[in-house]
């Protein structure tokens, strides 16, 4: 006879549990963790290079570098004197909490104050997978077109801040900065938006200050909690 079994189980349950463990571990260590998400080539690695340059003398920084096959990005960052761990997903289109848990084993967590996770270049799947970060930051570059927020709303809804990168290219594109900001605000009113150029450095200060603020907030809460 036919029997119906109620399962009522989230498909990503295993990932959510592991992400929770990562989060506890990172919070206990007073580490601020930022999950960087963007389409391929929006400028995650370039932004990291510049950000590290501005912050590495203030506190120690770790990087988890997600990439499908190559180690090019972690080679770029390893030259900067920060702890870099590479994860290759071999075709996988996003990082998951299990991969990050393994990467944490290879990082000097006791020393770190700030950890960046460069997710695999993709605006779709990474939004769905909690890694245990404190916040997600989405990067949209002006060469991608200003309709992206409405096309990929989940990532922008999940993000705490959005970087509009490559503003040095604005004169050469039809990207409408005001319209993009408005669309982002419709998705999430309290999004923090940083228009900047990781290449020229224009607009970087506000982003760097925001990160410093995050780091001191995490330090305070791990000291009291």
């Amino acid at each position, binding site marked *: *006879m036919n029997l119906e079994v109620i399962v009522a189980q989230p*498909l990503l349950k295993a990932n959510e549990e592991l992400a929770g463990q990562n989060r506890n571990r990172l919070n206990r260590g007073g580490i601020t963790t930022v999950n960087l998400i963007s389409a391929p080539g929006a400028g995650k690695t370039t932004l990291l290079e510049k950000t590290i340059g501005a912050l590495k003398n203030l506190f120690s920084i770790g990087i988890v570098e997600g990439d499908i096959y190559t180690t090019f990005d972690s080679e770029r960052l390893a030259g900067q004197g920060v702890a870099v761990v590479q994860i290759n997903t071999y075709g996988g289109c996003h990082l998951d909490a299990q991969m990050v848990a393994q990467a944490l084993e290879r990082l000097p967590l006791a020393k770190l104050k700030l950890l960046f996770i460069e997710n695999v270049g993709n605006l779709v799947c990474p939004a769905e997978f909690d890694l245990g970060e404190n916040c997600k930051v989405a990067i949209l570059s002006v060469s991608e077109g200003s309709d992206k927020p409405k096309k990929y709303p989940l990532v922008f809804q999940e993000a705490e801040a959005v970087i509009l990168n490559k503003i040095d290219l604005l004169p050469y594109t039809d990207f409408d900065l005001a319209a993009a900001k408005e669309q982002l605000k419709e998705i999430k009113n*309290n999004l923090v938006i940083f228009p900047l150029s990781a290449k020229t450095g224009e607009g970087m200060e506000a982003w760097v200050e925001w990160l410093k603020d995050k780091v001191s907030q995490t330090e305070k809460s791990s000291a009291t909690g």
Partner: protein
Amino acid sequence: MHETALIAEVLKTVRQSALENNLPKVTKIKLAIGKLSMALPEALIFAFQVLKKGTICEEAELEIESKEIILQCLDCTQEFRSQDYNFSCPFCARSRIKIIQGRELHIISFEGEENELGSNCGSTLIKSQ
């Protein structure tokens, strides 16, 4: 894009539960997929057709219940449906919101045929676990 991985997870979970419930053959699987989740129903069905081969779900059909996006405004506490991915509150125009429904990626239930020797012959029974 990760629909294949999701379906692999469905097949794994259902297989385990079916064996525990003494169901050697699965005939139907029901999923709830939120409209805000980035999983496409067509891609899920395609992945299911491919991956179910040679498993106890080989003859099963996949039923997908699509879940509308329902949001709650954190400023005025009203609940509303999102139109066209607009997340601002129609009551107070702000958009600090909580997602009530629409992010689902859930297995709701599955149906299977019992072993001849099973003790529940003759009736369809709903079991929770």
